[in-house]
């Protein structure tokens, strides 16, 4: 056997080695505490709902310290407004850039408040999502956000993107 074919055989034996099968089967109920992804079509959104008015109360108590009153910005990013984007000088905001409203629910629930992530209830996350969309006039001030309504919110910059390498993107 030549060195090259020996090398190939060794590589192949590593690449196609049988799995030791040491993963333990796990049930949806066991994963539930971690299963927090929300996809753009709304899959993953939990039961429950929230309104802008409910969200305003949660916002004042838990968010305004960093993001400022009414989402106008503070030590952390502003959550309301944003000039139309023309160049990299622009500040990316929810209203002028974010393509999907589901990202709001997903990100608030996994990462906010910064110093106490995962402390909000699912209802509070719906309410905050509704409040932020409302102050940006992306939904009405009495609209309720839930698993059915949130994925249908049309974000202004939905079509503002170009896939960089279409050939390697499904």
């Amino acid at each position, binding site marked *: 056997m030549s060195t090259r074919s020996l090398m190939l055989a060794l590589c192949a034996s590593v690449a196609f080695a049988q799995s030791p099968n040491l993963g333990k089967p796990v049930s949806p109920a066991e994963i539930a505490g971690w299963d927090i992804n929300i996809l753009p079509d709304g899959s993953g959104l939990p039961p429950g709902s929230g309104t802008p008015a409910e969200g305003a109360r949660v916002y004042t108590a838990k968010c305004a310290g960093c993001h400022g009153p009414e989402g106008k910005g503070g030590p952390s990013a502003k959550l309301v407004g944003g000039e139309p984007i023309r160049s990299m000088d622009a500040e990316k905001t929810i209203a002028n850039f974010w393509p999907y409203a589901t990202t709001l629910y997903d990100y608030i629930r996994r990462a906010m408040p910064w110093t106490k992530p*995962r402390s909000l209830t699912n209802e509070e996350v719906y309410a905050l999502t509704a409040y932020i969309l409302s102050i940006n006039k992306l939904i009405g001030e009495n609209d309720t956000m839930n698993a059915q309504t949130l994925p249908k919110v049309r974000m202004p910059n939905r079509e503002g993107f170009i896939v960089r390498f279409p050939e390697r993107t499904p």
Partner: protein
Amino acid sequence: MKMTPSDQAKRELKNLEAVAGNGLLHRRAWLRGGAALAGAVTGYTLVPSAFGQQLSEDAWSLAPGVTVPEYSVRSKFENKVARSLSNPKGEPRTQHARTPHHLINGTFTPNGLHFTISHAGDPDIDPDKHRLVIHGLVKQPLVFTLEALSRYPMVSRMAFVECGGNSAPLFSLEPIQATAQAIHGLVSCAEWTGVPLSTLLDEAGVDPKAKWIVAEGGDPPHLSRSTPLTKAMDDAMIVLYQNGERVMPGNGYPMRLLLPGWEGNMNTKWVRRIQVTDQPGMTFYEARTYAPILPGGKAYRFYFLQEVKSFITHPSPGLAMKGPGFYEISGVAYSGNGRIAKVMVSADGGKSWAQAALQGPVHSKAFTRFRAPWRWDGGPAVLQSRAWDETGYSQPTRAQLVASRGETSKVPAVTGFPSQHYNAITSWSIERGGEVKNVYA
């Protein structure tokens, strides 16, 4: 006192091709010329004494040294070789620690100097309690312990990891004076050892409808990113070891996802969950952050790839020249598309180019160090490096990159990220006094 090169060295010097302008020598000059060449390029040859002092014993040679420690710590004389911190007090925002490329050499980044970006500090994870879950569009959702993963067949590979925002200061409309660390410090290279992700996905049984994975970390923001399944099944790895020891806390202890050659942020640190899906998650970091704005206002989505790049580490800003004479120009080149094929170096701002020597072995999607001998005549020079990868793609000039991608209208903070995925040629100007500056050429 001015030394005269020997006649032999003069002959060697004649044979030496100055392969490009402003003193660039052939990349094999040092090897071919040998000792005589050393004389020729430095302008010195053997003379009775230029040293002028008597060697004597130093204190450290005259008594036993310190007790050998269990875990090595570098010499105290090297303490200034450190990462630069964007948020040293750990305020509630992202922390960046940048690799001091101008103060190290070779191709591996030492673990203590590997760049780190942590969005809410480094979590202090108990490895015995950490779990990795694979679920979603699979036949059988599975959970793995670190102990279980440690029993799998492993692979080791070299790979660079680079933040998609590395080199962003070069989007500034005017060159910002900063070191290679400040400009290019969010890329590092290590040998990573772990379990191919394809092994674990195969064990769970991927549904034919699956197209993406969404990976999530156990850090406080539960950072999550989506990756095409094709990449996950190709060369993705669940990494357990970094340069032979367990992954450092800032790099994902006890396990991280490695996607060789792809945007650092996607290489999920502290990875605890992978959901197999039929669509991307459009998570915060892919929907908003790593979507560079183009002139006119559209933005790129799913850039993913870290394209071919190189930069000169020696000389570079902060490393002043020590007078005219021989220098080695050296730096790193890398591409997310594969191996580095060629690096060209210029000392006259791109008017003429010499091919640099590549330090082998050249690994795919990893740092390759390049070296080129240079005799600086003490006058102004502009050093550049340009790399090609094995697909034939090469670095654009800054003018070319900016024409398609834009630049800022005001000078941003050096720690800012006006855009991402900057891979154009970097230019260092050597000033007459020996100072090295960042310039656009």
